């Protein structure tokens, strides 16, 4: 019964059905039980996606046992539901001799899903995290008037995310790309009474839309270059367009879309503001699922990126810059959720760097980090949520302190998350970070390695910064003397069971997942069977020596230890050391630069928002004063013409008689000529 096709449809259908049910019955019937349909749907769909993974695993083993079939033949299954738009041969055949893909020119968009290892992995991650977050938010959102609305939006979000991940053509990808943006808009602005939340929602949507413009232009260029928008058609015919400038342009445009969605360097300003939304939202959307859509899209389009090496360089550079930028800003922030937001930006930067290497090892490392990051970042966010929940909405780390004894579960799970993100040996973070470092080290050896050498070093610096900016809030909030903010009232106690359970599960996940995947080599092996990664497999290169592996791992661990130690030394002790360090850094303005978040918001305001608004006001003035008055003046022409003839009536009878005589004379004159 559970063959791949039904599973593929079931996974998105369940959350959609739950969302619609909650929306319809939420206000009247379900009221405070409106979490039931969504949570059950998410758990079921998680189970379905795990089944899907196993189905694909079986198919891979079948493929491996059959002799003769080339190992690289990827496993994929396409389910076409109904045709959205079908405009046959909408485009004239290419003139300048470019080769034509089969089915060129018919703009035939079907709502079709595909299942291959990459999708299966993403589906599993998305559904797992969303199920846990849904359970967590039962406790967190209790008593909120919009309770049912929250779960309806979460259901809608998971539906769009699962469809996005399993879409089979670029247009469908774009459709759910924007739908996910819509859900994030709705969820960020969930408490719409707060103007900050509403403004943050709008800002998120607009910045995403700017990214989507790039994405749309990329899709248009794909359409005019390949004549079809279907993944299969495009990736097969990429080979013939290796050197073409269009492919590079496509890749760069897609990258802009990815930056918009995954909050990379130029378009990252919306993610910190998105923290205005409820914390489960931040955990689900702005840590694990939606922001990784960009990474998924770059991974999905690897054949395109492979055909355009310089685009890969750009991806790597953007990733590197963002990673460093996020890390530096995160150090000086005082709001725990903002720290986690910038840490997410930084980690996404690492994923982009990994994808930028363009080798199978790099891409699988990137995806591996995506999975592990989803776990421990969700864990950290939910931990922060539970602290916020307990402390009556205060999240400023300077006003909290020494909550260790009052919130033991949150403390230990938060510790596990911090260790994992820092990359301490047995935990998941270590393995994925190590994989990225390895892929970078390996890539720097290959052609054009210089750039990657620098990126390798910056990543190492990043490792230190991660430990520092994660353990700083950890020590401030949980250790030191107890500081309870007045908003918490006198009863600051551990969060209820429904909130701590997901924390524990996630903690377990972020500890075990990495090790499990690493030792069974399952993840990389499983992913390599994605059809779109075939082009990478051919460029086979020597396996990495075990010596390199150990060396890279050692360097990573040492730096982690250094980071943790400095954080402990500074923040466990008195605050004097911190003040002195801050003053020292501020000598050349680094501190204010970092604290002011590199002043991106004021820059964008001054160079983008304000000029546009003033142009708009000028246009409005121009419209009223120039064009409108021009039209009114045309209306006045008859009046002016009339005024020209008025003097003839001057009231003198004899003047009129004389005029008549003059007329007669003229007529006589003409007749006599």
């Amino acid at each position, binding site marked *: 019964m559970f063959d791949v096709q039904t599973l593929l449809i079931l996974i998105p259908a369940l959350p959609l059905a739950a969302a619609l049910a909650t929306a319809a019955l939420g206000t009247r019937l379900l009221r405070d039980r409106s979490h039931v349909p969504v949570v059950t749907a998410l758990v079921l769909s998680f189970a379905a996606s795990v089944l899907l993974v196993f189905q694909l695993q079986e198919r891979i083993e079948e493929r491996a046992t059959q002799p003769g079939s080339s190992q690289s033949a990827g496993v994929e299954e396409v389910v076409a539901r109904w045709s959205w738009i079908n405009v046959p041969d909408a485009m004239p055949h290419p003139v300048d001799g470019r080769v034509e893909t089969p089915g060129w020119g018919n703009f035939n968009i079907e709502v079709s899903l595909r299942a291959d290892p990459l999708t299966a992995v993403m589906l599993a991650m998305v559904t797992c995290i969303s199920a846990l977050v849904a359970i967590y938010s039962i406790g967190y959102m209790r008593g909120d008037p919009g309770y049912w609305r929250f779960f309806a939006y979460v259901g809608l979000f998971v539906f769009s995310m699962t469809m996005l991940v399993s879409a089979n053509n670029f247009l469908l990808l774009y459709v759910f790309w924007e739908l996910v943006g819509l859900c994030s808009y709705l969820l960020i602005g969930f408490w719409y009474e707060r103007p900050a939340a509403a403004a943050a929602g709008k800002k998120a949507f607009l910045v995403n839309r700017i990214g989507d413009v790039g994405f749309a232009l990329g899709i248009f260029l794909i359409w005019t270059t390949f004549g079809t928008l279907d993944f299969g058609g495009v990736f097969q015919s990429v080979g013939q367009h290796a050197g073409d400038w269009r492919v590079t342009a496509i890749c760069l445009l897609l990258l802009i879309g990815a930056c918009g969605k995954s909050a990379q360097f130029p378009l990252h300003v919306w993610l910190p503001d998105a923290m205005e939304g409820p914390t489960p939202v931040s955990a689900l959307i702005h840590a694990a699922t939606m922001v990784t859509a960009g990474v998924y899209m770059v991974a999905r389009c690897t054949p395109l990126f492979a055909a355009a090496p310089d685009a890969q360089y750009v991806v790597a550079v953007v990733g590197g810059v963002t990673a460093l930028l996020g890390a530096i800003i995160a150090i000086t922030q005082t709001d725990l959720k903002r720290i986690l937001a910038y840490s997410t930006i930084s980690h996404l930067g690492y994923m982009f760097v990994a994808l930028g290497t363009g080798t199978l090892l790099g891409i699988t490392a990137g995806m591996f980090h995506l999975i592990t990051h989803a776990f421990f970042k969700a864990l950290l966010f939910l931990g922060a949520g539970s602290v916020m929940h307990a402390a009556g909405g205060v999240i400023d780390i300077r006003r909290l302190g020494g909550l260790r004894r009052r919130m033991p579960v949150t403390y230990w799970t938060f510790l596990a998350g911090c260790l994992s993100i820092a990359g301490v040996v047995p935990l998941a973070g270590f393995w994925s970070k190590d994989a990225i470092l390895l892929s970078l080290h390996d890539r720097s050896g290959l052609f054009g390695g210089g750039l990657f050498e620098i990126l390798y070093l910056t990543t190492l610096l990043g490792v230190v910064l991660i430990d520092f900016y994660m353990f700083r809030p950890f020590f401030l909030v949980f250790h030191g003397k107890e500081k309870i903010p007045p908003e918490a009232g006198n009863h600051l106690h551990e969060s209820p069971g429904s909130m701590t359970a997901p924390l524990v599960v996630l903690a377990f996940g972020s500890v075990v997942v990495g090790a499990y995947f690493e030792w069974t080599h399952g993840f990389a092996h499983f992913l390599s069977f994605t059809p779109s990664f075939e082009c990478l497999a051919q460029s086979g290169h020597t396996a990495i020596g075990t010596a390199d592996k150990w060396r890279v791992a050692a360097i990573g661990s040492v730096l982690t230890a250094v980071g943790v130690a400095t954080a402990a030394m500074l923040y466990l002790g008195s605050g004097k050391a911190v003040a002195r360090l801050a003053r020292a850094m501020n000598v050349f303005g680094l501190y204010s630069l970092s604290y002011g978040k590199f002043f991106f918001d004021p820059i964008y305001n001054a160079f983008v928002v304000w000029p546009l608004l003033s142009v708009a006001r000028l246009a409005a003035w121009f419209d009223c004063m120039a064009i409108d008055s021009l039209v009114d003046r045309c209306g006045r022409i008859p009046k002016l013409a009339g005024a020209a003839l008025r003097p003839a009536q001057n009231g*003198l009878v*004899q003047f009129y008689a*004389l005029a008549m*005589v*003059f007329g*007669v*004379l003229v007529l*006589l*004159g003409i007749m*006599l000529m």
Partner: protein
Amino acid sequence: MPDPRHILTLAVLLGAVGLWLMLPRGGARGRAVGAVLGIVALGLWFSQFHGLGQWTADGMFFVLAAIAVVAAVGAVTSRNPVYCAIWFGLSLLGTAGLLLLVGAQFLAVATVLVYAGAILVMFLFVLMVAQPEGKASCDRMSWEAGVSAAAGIAMVGVLSVAIGGILSPSCPAMPPIAPPTQEELAAGVLDPHQVARLGDELFGRRLIAVEVAGTLLLAALVGAAVIVNQFSGRRHDGQQRTV
């Protein structure tokens, strides 16, 4: 013999200046000089006439024409409206004479009888009734005397050029209509019983026109009565209202 056109234009110009001088221009002097110029212009103008052959007819014609035109000028230029009316009467007599000369006997009598007798008298009555106290300013001034004089005389000049041009044999466009011979005239317009013939004509072919003229007169009568009664109720307040 200078070109007839130059004489004509000279006559016209002199006539214009003369008339301008004679028109009432608010006490401006020069009426006499105007009169002299007018007479000279008239003389020059008459020189353009082609005589009728016998000197007696010519004489009669020129005298009557002179009377008509001079009286008309007098009617137009005199200060006192009553004098205008009387000059007009003289002009009517001159015209009646000319009509007789042409052979329209009934017309001449009708003009004198109806025109001079009835209409002129009615003018005098109205003048008497509508007589503002003291010297009315409107009689001592005229509006744009120069321009109107020029326009009027220009009209005369153009018409006379047209008449001269058309009737002269050299005019190509004029179809050669044979002027009526004396016999035809005697049988036609100058028939001794021409008045009876005129009567036949009027009540023969043009009966409808005569009836219409009759009703027109009736309508005018009723109209005049209504208009005049309109304000009869208000007493004449007698103050002198300025312009």
